[in-house]
C-alpha cells in the first residue's frame, strides 16, 4: 500500500490499487440570442409559462424550422474563441425520442457533421500549472421544454418557453484528470463565451450546464468504462459529483465488479450519484439528417470576418496583464475570469503598483463581496476608489493596516478613501517629532524593558515597535518608528 501522502489530486487509493480519474465534459451553453434557433419566439428568461412559444415550437402540423442566422454566427464566434476549426459544411439531424416536453418528437441537433470541429483551451491551476484541454467539437441544437410535476396531484404540466432555444454543446476530449481541472475547464469555457458574448454563462438560470463523463483506471491502463452524470449546473456540484462517482467506481472495480455504462443523476442533497438509465434502456435516437433543413454551407469570408472581429480573449488578456502590471499568472487568471473583473482591475491599477492592486482586489475586494453576498456588479467600491486607496498606501498617507480599516468603510459607505481618512483622522503620522514623543512615552513607561534590551535582549525591539504603534493608534509610519526607535535605544 502506498503512502497516503503521495496521493495526488485526481487519484484514489483503493484497498488494492492506486487509481486515476479520466474525465470528459459536455457543456451545454445557451446561445445569447433574441429568438430561438429555428423560430421567431423570444428567449427571454422568467416569462409566464408558455408565453414564448411559436407555432413551430409547439410543433403544430405543417410547421417548418428556419435557421436563426445570429445563432450560427454565435457558434462560429465560439468556435474561433475555443481555437477550433470551423466546418464550412455542417448538417442538422433529428434526434428522435418521445417526451411530453419535446413537441416535435425529435430534437434538431448536429450529429455527424457539427458546425465546429477540434480545438483546445488552456487552463491554469492554483499552482500556476498550465494544461491544454482538447475540444472534440461544438454543435448547435435545440433545448427541450420543461415538465412540471408538482403543480397538480395527478397531472404533469408542460412549459415550452425553453423549447427550441439554441444551445451549443461543447464536447471536451477526455483530457481532464481531476475534479478541480473539470471545474477550472468549465470556468474557462464559461469565461471565454462570456467574453465574446455568445452565452451569458448564467449557471443558476441554466444557461450553462454540464454532463460529466467519468471513468477510472490504474495508471498507464486503457480508459475504463465511463458513466455520464447529467445536467450539473455549478462547478461545486461538478467537483462533488465527479469525486463521488470516481470513488464509487473504484469500490466496484476493487470488489471484482465491472462498471455498467450508464447515465446517472447527481443528488445535490446527498452528494451521491444514482442510476438514471442503463445502456439497455438507452434510447435509440434514430438520428438522420433533417429533411426540412438544407445542409449549412458557410462562406469562408464570413468565417474570417467573424474571427477578425473577436475581442481580446482571456488568455491574451492574462498574458498582457502579467507583462504590463507585473502580476503573477495565477492572479492574472483570476482577474481575467470575468470581463468585468479585468475591466475593473485595469481601471484600479492605472498608475499604481499592479501587484498591490491585484492583492487588494483578489483578497479584500472579492472577500468583502462574498461576505456581503453581493454580485460583482453590485460592488460598492469603484475602481477609482480602490486606485485611490492604493495611492494612499503608496505615498505613506496611511499604512497597509489602516488601509484595511479604510477599506471596510469604503465597502459600507462607498465613500472616497481620502474622505474617510480625513473624517476619521487616519492619516499616517510621519512627523519625526510626533513619533519621538510617542517613543519617549513608551520608553518612560517601560524602564525595566529598556534595561533588558540594552543588556542584549534584542528580541524586545519588536515589543517597543508594537507599543509605539499602539500609542499612535496605528497611525505612525512603521518605517519611521523603526528608524527612530533604533537611534533612541542606542
Amino acid at each position: 500500500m502506498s503512502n497516503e501522502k503521495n496521493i495526488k489530486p485526481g487519484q484514489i487509493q483503493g484497498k488494492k490499487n492506486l487509481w486515476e480519474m479520466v474525465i470528459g465534459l459536455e457543456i451545454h451553453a445557451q446561445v445569447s440570442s433574441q429568438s430561438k434557433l429555428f423560430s421567431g419566439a423570444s428567449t427571454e428568461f422568467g416569462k409566464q409559462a408558455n408565453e414564448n412559444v411559436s407555432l413551430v415550437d409547439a410543433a403544430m402540423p405543417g410547421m417548418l424550422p428556419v435557421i436563426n442566422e445570429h445563432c450560427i454566427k454565435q457558434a462560429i464566434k465560439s468556435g474561433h474563441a475555443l481555437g477550433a476549426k470551423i466546418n464550412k459544411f455542417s448538417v442538422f439531424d433529428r434526434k428522435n425520442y418521445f417526451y411530453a416536453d419535446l413537441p416535435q418528437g425529435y430534437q434538431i441537433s448536429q450529429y455527424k457533421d457539427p458546425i465546429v470541429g477540434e480545438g483546445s483551451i488552456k487552463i491554469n491551476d492554483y499552482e500556476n500549472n498550465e494544461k491544454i484541454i482538447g475540444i472534440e467539437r461544438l454543435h448547435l441544437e435545440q433545448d427541450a421544454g420543461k415538465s412540471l410535476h408538482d403543480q397538480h396531484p395527478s397531472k404533469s404540466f408542460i412549459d415550452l418557453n425553453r423549447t427550441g432555444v439554441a444551445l451549443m454543446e461543447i464536447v471536451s476530449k477526455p483530457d481532464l484528470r481531476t475534479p478541480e481541472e473539470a471545474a477550472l475547464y468549465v470556468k474557462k469555457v464559461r469565461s471565454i463565451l462570456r467574453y465574446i458574448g455568445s452565452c451569458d454563462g448564467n449557471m443558476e438560470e441554466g444557461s450553462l450546464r454540464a454532463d460529466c463523463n467519468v471513468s477510472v483506471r490504474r495508471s498507464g491502463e486503457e480508459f475504463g468504462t465511463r458513466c455520464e452524470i447529467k445536467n450539473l449546473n455549478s462547478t461545486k456540484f461538478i467537483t462533488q459529483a465527479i469525486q463521488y462517482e470516481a470513488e464509487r467506481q473504484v469500490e466496484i472495480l476493487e470488489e471484482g465488479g465491472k462498471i455498467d455504462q450508464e447515465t446517472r443523476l447527481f443528488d445535490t442533497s446527498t452528494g451521491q450519484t444514482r442510476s438514471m438509465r442503463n445502456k439497455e434502456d438507452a434510447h435509440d435516437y434514430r438520428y438522420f439528417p433533417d429533411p426540412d433543413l438544407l445542409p449549412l454551407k458557410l462562406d469562408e469570408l464570413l468565417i474570417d470576418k467573424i474571427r477578425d472581429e473577436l475581442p481580446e480573449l482571456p488568455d491574451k488578456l492574462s498574458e498582457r496583464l502579467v507583462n504590463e502590471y507585473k502580476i503573477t499568472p495565477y492572479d492574472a487568471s483570476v482577474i481575467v475570469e470575468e470581463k468585468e473583473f479585468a475591466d475593473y482591475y485595469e481601471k484600479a491599477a492605472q498608475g499604481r503598483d499592479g501587484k498591490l492592486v491585484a492583492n487588494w482586489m483578489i483578497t479584500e475586494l472579492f472577500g468583502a463581496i462574498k461576505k456581503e453576498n453581493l454580485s460583482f456588479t453590485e460592488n460598492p467600491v469603484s475602481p477609482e476608489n480602490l486606485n485611490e486607496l492604493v495611492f494612499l498606501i503608496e505615498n505613506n498617507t496611511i499604512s497597509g493596516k489602516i488601509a484595511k480599516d479604510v477599506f471596510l468603510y469604503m465597502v459600507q459607505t462607498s465613500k472616497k478613501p481620502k474622505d474617510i481618512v480625513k473624517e476619521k483622522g487616519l492619516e499616517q503620522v510621519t512627523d519625526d517629532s510626533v513619533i519621538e514623543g510617542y517613543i519617549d512615552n513608551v520608553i518612560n513607561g517601560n524602564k525595566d524593558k529598556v534595561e533588558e534590551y540594552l543588556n542584549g535582549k534584542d528580541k524586545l525591539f519588536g515589543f517597543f515597535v508594537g507599543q509605539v504603534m499602539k500609542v499612535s493608534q496605528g497611525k505612525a509610519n512603521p518605517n519611521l518608528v523603526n528608524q527612530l526607535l533604533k537611534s533612541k535605544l542606542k
Partner: protein
Amino acid sequence: MSELLTLNISQVLEGLKKKKFSAVELTRSYLDRIEETKALNMYLEISADKAITMAEKADENYKNNSARLLEGIPIGIKDMFCTESIKTTASSKILENFVPTYESTVSNKLWEEGAINLGKLSCDEFAMGSSNETAAQGNVINPWKVEETRSPGGSSGGSAAAVASKSALCTIGTDTGGSIRQPAAFCGIVGMKPTYGRCSRWGIIAFASSLDQAGPLTRNVSDSATMLKVMAGHDPKDSTSSLESVPNFNDFLDKGVKGLKIGIPEEYDRKGISEEILNSKEKVIDLLKQNGAEIVNVSLPLTKYALPVYYIVAPAEASSNLARYDGVRYGLRVDGDSLDDMYEKTRANGFGDEVKRRIMIGTYVLSSGYYDAYYLKAQKVRRLIKNEFDEVFKKVDYLLTPTTPTTSFKLGSTQDLLTMYLNDVFTVPASLAGIPGISVPIDLDKNGLPIGIQLLGKPFDEGGVFQVGKVIEDCAEFNFSPEGNFS
C-alpha cells in the same frame, strides 16, 4: 347540372370579366353540385358560407375592375393543407378535431389571388396510400363507372374525383410518390407535380419532407399552368423552397414540340402493365412525331430500385414527422395510466393500419444497426437515381412514360400491399429525383376508364412540361366526362 360547371378556368375568368355570370352564381352552382355528388364521399368539410362571402368579394372586385389572377375561381383543397378556422385532419382520426389557426402558404396564395375555398377534400390518411382507401372518413368513389365503385387513386383521391365530377373547378393536392399524378390518371384529369422546392411546404401536413410537393389538379393543361403560377414561389418560412423565379407558365403553351427530343425509357415497359396503356402510349409517341418531336429511346436502369428506395426513405421521414401526434397538445388524446400509456393508446387509436405500418417500417430502417443497410443505402441509391436522370436529360428534353400500370381498380380489390405499392412504380422515380411531372388523360380503356400519360422534365422546367403536355392534350382530344348518377 349547371352549364357553368363545364367551364374551365380561362372560360370562367372570361365569363366573370364580361359579367356573363357572377362569382356567387358560379359558387352556388358548385356548392349545389357538391351536394349532388355527396355519395362520392369527396368533401370532408364544405365551407359554404365562407365560399359565398369570398364570391361576393370577387364580384365586387370585378365590378371595381380590380380582379386578381384567380378572382372567383372555386377551388377544393386536399385535407393535407392547413386552413385557418377550417378543420384539417389529413383524413386521420388523430386530427379529427384539429382546427388550425393558420393558413398554408400555398392555399393562402390562392386566396390572395381571389380564389374561392369550397372546402376540404378527402385523401389517404396522411397521404399514405394509392387508392384513397386509408382515409379515416372512408374511401372516395371514382366518378368514372360509379356503379362499379372504383378507386379514384390516391392519395389525392378526393381532389382528383372532385375535378372529374365537376364538384370543384380545380383542386390542389400533394404528391410524395405519385399522389397527384396517379389519381389524376385514374380520374381522367390533368395532375401536375412541380419540381421539389417549387411550392412552399409551410402549412402542409408533412408526410415525407424531402419528397412532398404541392401541385394543381385541373381539367386541362392550361388551367394547370394558371394555377401553378399562383401556387409557386420562394417562401422564407420553408428553407427547402427554391429561390428560382417563377415564369408565366401559360406563355409556354403554344410553343409546340417541333425539334424537341422526347425520351422513351425502356424500363417503363415492364411486366404487368396493361396492354391498352402501352398501346395508347405508342399512339402518343406517333402524335408527337407527327408534330415534329424527335423520339429517342433511352435507358434508366436504376428505375427498378426506385420503389424499394421510396419505401425506405418516405416511411423513415414519416416515422419522425408523425411523432408530434402524441396526444399532448392537439388532436386526439386517449387517456392512459402514464405518459407512455397515453402515447400508446392515443396513437394506437388515432392512426390507421397503413400509417402504423409505415411508422414501423420507418422506425426500423432508422434503427441503430439497420440505418446503414437501409436508410443510408437508400439515400445513396436515391442520389444515383437523380444522377441517372441528370445524365439522360443531357440527351433528351423530356421523358414520356405511362402514369400508372393499370387503370382504376375496384375499391377493396387489392388485398396485396405490394400490388398496391406498384401503382406508384412509374411516378416514384421522378419524386425521388425531385423533377417535375404531369399526367395528362389521353384515352379510355375498353372498360371506359381513363388512361393517363406522364411527361417528366428537367428541374424547374415546368413550363416546358406544360408546353409538351398541351400538345399531347390537343392531339389526344380527350373529351370524355364521367357519366352517371352520383347521388
